[in-house]
């Protein structure tokens, strides 16, 4: 990724006129907030359809282990990697395993009834709880020392343009799925878009709020909730505008190569663009939490760039005896692992603004999946591969936790940020507390 040398260059290339200048100058960052504190960060990266256990899990436990083929790309970061086997999604209830696999992955709680039907299972709707990334975001945003412009950013790569249980991993609360942004240009706009209309917007917000209150009084009690939420969003918009005005850009605005289409064969390019934008958003301290979602649960990307013409989901159904299919699935997971490794590399080569170490020293990447294995649809041994030193876990190890509910790992992530919750998701899986032996 290139960087513009000067703001003028940026403006020229963006085709913006001089009148926009004062607003661009107000592009946000938080260079002065939490200056003295360490900036802990979390990235949760999702890839779909399970893994091939024999080529994914190291055979040895402890600090002496070999990286199997699917994990080979992490070799340069082996001493910063922690592989957790034996963590299982024990949440049951409505929905098929793909739906619960993604919907309960970060929420640890059952799906609501709905009528979206999966592969023959009971219909289900959205998750009935908040996801851990949003829980941690809310925790960080409450404290002025850790508050950032967005709090969290949700990235995607070729996520189908379809809001259903299979395409949503993050939840702001019960029934509140968050749509990831899988268009790098849209993400760029969100991070660096011009603020020229914001002043005007701000000045009409009072009138809007006033009218919202009038409308609210005219609808039934049960329908007021949605209008209250709408009012909250209007207030947040006002806060965003105010926040944007008081901040300076703080870092070079990245240049992203134009014209990459949202289509199957562009997935490698989209992935790189999105990872670069993610790293750049961390440089500007726009957020401390990010999620990164490849396609969706049951994702059926065709890895044509690896010479694999079949869709991933179709392949993942092939039995263990189909060696060709298992070999292809191993290569597919190796490709996802390369993306994790590229992300780790970018973070490792980017120094912190305060000069203390690199971004990877303060970031934890969690690479996960909705299933343990595609052909059995099992929710046992959900892949959790952790990279980076953000939460001070003891890295450079391969562990087998032995069938623990994943709610406990989610709690450990929160505790890593100092957010000491005693339950997360379904309380019945939280009684034993956070996972032992991580730090």
């Amino acid at each position, binding site marked *: 990724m290139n960087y513009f040398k000067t703001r003028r260059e940026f403006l020229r290339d963006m085709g913006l006129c001089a009148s926009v200048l004062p607003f661009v100058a107000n592009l946000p960052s938080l260079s002065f907030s939490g200056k003295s504190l360490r900036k802990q960060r979390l990235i949760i990266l999702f890839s779909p359809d399970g893994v091939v256990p024999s080529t994914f899990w190291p055979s040895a436990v402890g600090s002496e282990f070999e990286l199997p083929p699917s994990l080979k790309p992490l070799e340069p970061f082996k001493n910063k990697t922690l592989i957790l086997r034996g963590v299982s999604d024990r949440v049951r209830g409505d929905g098929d395993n793909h739906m619960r696999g993604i919907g309960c992955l970060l929420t640890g709680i059952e799906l609501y009834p709905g009528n979206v039907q999966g592969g023959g299972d009971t219909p289900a709707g959205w998750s009935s709880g908040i996801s851990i990334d949003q829980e941690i975001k809310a925790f960080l945003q409450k404290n002025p020392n850790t508050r950032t412009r967005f709090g969290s950013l949700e990235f995607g790569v070729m996520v189908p343009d379809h809001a259903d249980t299979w395409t949503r991993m993050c939840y702001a609360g019960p029934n509140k799925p968050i749509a990831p942004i899988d268009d790098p240009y849209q993400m760029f706009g969100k991070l660096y878009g011009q603020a020229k209309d914001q002043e005007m917007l701000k000045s009409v917000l009072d009138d809007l709020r006033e009218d919202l209150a009038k*409308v609210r009084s005219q609808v039934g009690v049960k329908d007021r909730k949605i209008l209250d939420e709408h009012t909250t969003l209007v207030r947040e918009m006002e806060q965003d505008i105010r926040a944007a005005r008081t901040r300076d850009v703080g870092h070079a605005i990245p240049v992203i190569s134009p014209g990459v289409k949202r289509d199957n064969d562009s997935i490698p390019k989209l992935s790189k663009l999105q990872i670069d934008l993610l790293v750049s958003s961390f440089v500007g301290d726009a957020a401390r939490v990010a999620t990164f979602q490849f396609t969706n649960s049951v994702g059926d990307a065709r890895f044509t760039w690896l010479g694999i013409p079949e869709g991933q989901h179709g392949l993942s*159904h092939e039995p263990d005896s189909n060696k060709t299919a298992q070999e292809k699935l191993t290569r597919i997971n190796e490709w996802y692992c390369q993306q994790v490794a590229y992300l780790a590399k970018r973070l490792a080569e980017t120094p912190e603004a305060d000069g203390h170490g690199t971004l990877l020293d303060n970031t934890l990447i969690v690479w996960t999946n909705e299933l343990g294995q595609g052909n059995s649809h*099992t929710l046992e041994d959900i892949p959790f591969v952790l990279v980076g030193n953000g939460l001070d876990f003891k890295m450079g190890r391969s562990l087998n936790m032995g069938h623990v509910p994943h709610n406990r790992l989610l709690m450990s992530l929160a505790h890593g940020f100092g957010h000491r919750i005693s339950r997360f998701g379904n309380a019945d899986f939280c009684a034993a507390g956070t996972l032992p032996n991580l730090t």
Partner: protein
Amino acid sequence: MAISTTARSTYTLTLSFLPMAVALTLSGGAQQSPKQPEGQKLFLSRCSHCHGANGQGGSADPQPLAGTLSAKELASFIKKSMPSGPKKCPPEDADKIAAYIYDAFFSPLAQERIRPARMKLVHLTVRQFKNAVSDLVTGYHSAIPYVETHGLHAEYFKSRSRDAKNRAIDRIDPEVRFDFGTDGPAKEQFDPRNFSIVWQGSIFAPDSGEYEFSIHSRHSVQLWINGSRYPVVDGEVRSAGDPDPHGTVNLLGGISYGVYMVFTKATQGVDDTNKKNAKPVEPSFVTLNWRRPKHVLEPVPTQFLYKDYSAKSFVPSTPFPPDDRSMGYERGDGVSKEWDDATTAAALEAAEYVTKNLSEVSGIPDNDPNRDKRLRDYCSDFLKRAFRHPISDDLKATYIDKQFRAAATPEAAVKRVVVLALKSPRFLFREIGDRKDPFTVASQLSFGLWDTIPDPELIRAATTGELSNKDSVVAQATRLANDHRAWSKLRDFLLLWLKVDEVPDITKNPKEFPEFSSAVASDLRTSLELFLENTAWSKSSDYRDFFQSDTQFLNGRLSKIYGASLPPDSSFQQVPLDPDRRAGVITHPYLLSRFAYLDSSSPIHRGLLVLRNLLGRVLSPPPASFVPLGATARPDLTTRERVALQTKPEFCNNCHSIINPLGYTLESFDAIGRIRDKDHGKPVDASGTYRSKTGTLVQLAGAQDLAKYLATSDDAHSAFISKLFVHVAKQPPLAYGPTILSELQQSFAKNQYSIRRLLVDSVVATAIPSTTAMPSTRSAKL
């Protein structure tokens, strides 16, 4: 008694117990078949006296039993605290009671499950938002009524200049796809070196997205879409060997856009040809191709072309998060930050367009002496259309006068008004509740059939009070249902009904199906869409024709694969295809290919399509995990035998005994939907069965029997009706009363299964109460 905890969410829970000796009351029992019958028994005998039979609360303790405790936490609370006397509930019983009440009504999930259906306040769906903004900004789209003949209006000129006096031919061309050779458009009539053609009319964009247009020709060609200032395709100047000129444009699905295309065969610039010494005539040809979203490049099929020109319209391009589909249909439920951000960005985008094109969109010249006053009137009209209701003086003061005072220029004022209007809850949320208000009725009709704000005719009918009369409501609905925008909505529904709303990438094993390519997959989808339109949008619009037709739409490429006899370069046309083996849509090769594997058919996928989508059945849960048996593992078995073997265990068979026999009836079709008599060297057995909702066992000898059943059975009709209804209403059917679907089913049969009538009846049912007379008084609105 009450407890509260400091867990993640704070809650208050009230439970009270009476002494044990309470009579068992089963009346109004909680659930039909509780998962914990013992727990239910205990609850009813010991707890219901105070808490009510369904935990809804009783006289002693009116608080409903609902909260966020887990089942275990609930059990421990009961053990410690219930009943209120010194003697507490035995631990074993407490566990059972807790498990029962948690599952039956206590948990948030159970609360959601038992909540009665009601009309919710919802916001506009993405499609509704974009259509409405487009209509608001650039006036109402030209209506395109249903027509039998498609094509563009063509004028052929005997010279490069297109003066009326040189016009030799004036006609409708079904497609722009010509090879003129060395003669020109008509021998003798034209100088084959020097002629020009103009095509104009409209092009219907079936889906939203990016459209690429390309013109295959060696001569000068230009194409304008949607009144663009510059040509979308500009091949005015051509160099030898240059590629076909092309260009892309963003279009909204369901809208027709103006098209203007010019072809010129002549020397561009000064005409200094010396005819006597001229070189031999160069042959000429011209084809208008497009690549619509997720299709391959193809000549624009005639079904998408209309002779009437559509006025320019604003196309919002702000990306939106997709709508909630958790209930199986798109609806504007809940608000999120991403949605709110998108509405803001779209409001700014629209405001920018309005202010930049103010004189054009408002019709008020910049030098008009009364400009300020007229612009306020324009804003007032804008608000009225956006809010779908007359604007009170109060609203005018806030939304217009105040903004004009605050802004430095009239443009800035209009910009503020547009942003404020598009961010207002009066625009963003659908009107609810009061179905007696004629303006609300107008909105129900318009959003129900066109997914947009009411058009001028509907506003007129609401203003005059006509919409207080049921016959007028039906007449207006019928008018809307005859327009192309209703077809667009119906088309989306049909694709959803057949589970092909998302365009899938269909790929096949190239070794087994070398003739199957992405171009074939794209052609097949076009073929299916043509079939659906030809059936649903025909005069009779008879649902049964979906399953009784013995024709399909094929072009030259498909004809070769599926065994019809068309010349290789044929355009799509309706031809008989295996009339004694196929029957309508269920045997369409697109669906048969879609619901199949890379190299084999899939009775399970096909069976599920029929069972869930076409017969409207819901399945109970299968075992959580399974390892499938690969096709290569047992090459001696037919697909049917292998599927039967795989799903033989009882825990599979509960569902698969229903799914598979429906899928088996389509076993006479291979993975790309061609007829086959043998599978793995053995004769195909395509017999199957189905047990209806009423319990009748139906024997099906094959695909044609299945099609006949789908055409005529109650199960299929009710599935179609209920799915269409929610697509129109975007609210649960029960919110409109318990009998609405059965009433629609009766009128469906009475009206010869006319889909168009069903569409009208459905939207009328959402707009006005079915039986009560409508008073004509206007009442409060949102």
